[in-house]
């Protein structure tokens, strides 16, 4: 059971992740599972990367979004548990980082939507649907003939 003062850290040995345009994209390198979290989830992932405590993260979320601190805390705990179960994060037992600067609460808080970890468990299945044929050689680059494409061998035929 996680406590408010607990901190999480990204499971960097097994996980590659990046926050792009507010969306966290996360890949578990050991099993190839792919995840994403947008909006509130993207912000939370960034704060986890900063090794902020759960109560600190919840306070930041409640400051940024139109949500009560209690609701932000509850949603965060549920999400943190999920991230732990998927082995995307670990409980951080190390020394606490230097205190983060306090987020200035924006004048207009953004609409809140509970953070969700989106999981794509079939990525490997889809990648294996129709593997490219091995041993294809490069073909000369040439203009397409008027009636048909001209070039390389086919990987599927519909």
């Amino acid at each position, binding site marked *: 059971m996680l406590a408010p003062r607990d901190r999480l850290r990204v499971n960097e040995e097994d996980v590659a992740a990046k926050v792009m345009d507010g969306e966290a*994209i996360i890949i578990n390198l050991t099993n190839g599972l792919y995840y994403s979290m947008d909006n509130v989830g993207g912000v939370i992932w960034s704060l986890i990367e900063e090794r902020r405590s759960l109560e600190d993260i919840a306070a930041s979320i409640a400051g940024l979004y139109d949500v009560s601190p209690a609701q932000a805390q509850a949603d965060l705990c549920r999400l943190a548990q999920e991230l732990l179960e998927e082995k995307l994060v670990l409980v951080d037992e190390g020394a606490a980082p230097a205190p983060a600067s306090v987020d200035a609460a924006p004048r207009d808080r953004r609409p809140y939507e509970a953070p969700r970890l*989106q999981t*794509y468990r079939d990525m490997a299945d*889809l990648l294996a649907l*129709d593997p490219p044929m091995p041993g294809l050689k490069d073909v000369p680059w040439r203009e397409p003939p008027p009636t048909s494409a001209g070039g390389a061998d086919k*990987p599927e*035929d519909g």
Partner: protein
Amino acid sequence: MRVLFWTELFWPYVGGVEVLSAQFIRLMRERRYEFAVVTSHGSLKLPDEDRYEDTPVHRFPFLKALSEKDIGQIAAARRRLVRLKEAFAPDLVHVQFTDPSILFHMQTADAHPAPCLVSIRVGLPDRGGPDTLVGRALRSADWVTANSAAMLAHARRLVPEITSRSCVIYNGLPGPSVALAPLPTDPPVVLCLGRIVRDKGFDLAVEALAAVARRIPAARLLIAGDGPERPALERQAQELGIADAVRFAGWVSPEAVPALINEAALVVMPSRWEEAFGLVALQAAQMGRPVVATRVGGLPEVVLHGETGLVVGKEDGAALAEAILFLLEHPDEAARLGEAARRRAADAFSMERYLDQHDALYRRLIKEVAHVGPA
């Protein structure tokens, strides 16, 4: 109207789907659509930015980035895709769903909101829950098409919510460019055409030919295509003592396919996997050839048992041999089935119908699906 056309492979690849896509774009442009193609490099070293005729082609390493789990490549591809969507501002995104690259479209949908048509062109995996890409992709689509009723039924089983916004659009092909030749009897040639991979089941055709040759020694098997299983097939033919009766034609260009089919008395498609459609069966039908196919995926919709060919159970070499023997020993019946196949191909699988159905769907989606662009 601008359409972002998303397909795993495109020119210069010349597989059935790639050629169909190129023809589709060329003919739809005559109906005043403007296309940009999003595709991959495949296994070749191809430029990121290119043009096919007057259509821009943008190649992205989507599958490479995903399979290598390379977050940097994923980020770069995504940023480039956002720029493309903002610049092209499509009225519609049409994704050929054969692989997981659709994830990149879904994750950049906000860059330029537009209705999304997802066309299933491959047998999807058996999971469609909310924790799968298949489930999310189909649920997020404004409309879903499949190229056979079997593929559509499977997709609807996986994601029942799409039932009211999905339909079948069968593949279509332009008419053949060469005149039909009579079915050859001396020697009677049986043709297998496609990639030589295990899923295509060409080994079952070799096994069947050995049985056929015991009753019809002159029978020949012509295998056209290439692939990793070719050496195994050559060994198999030698071990069965029919090496002289099996000819490997290697890779055949799309332009040469009709003439190749003209050499055959019948075409065999002994596939093991769930063929989404089976373009080769349609090409054979266009040339008036009966097809012996396995009961997998959409194949029995293209090959009607007893009407345009014969359908047998998969992995059943004996049944395959019996069906081949029946057609070779009853040339009048083979010709009747072939002619029925040709008529049906011209009617049910014409390119005109294929274009009309897409045209109507494109217009409807662009008109009806109201998306509000970014402020």
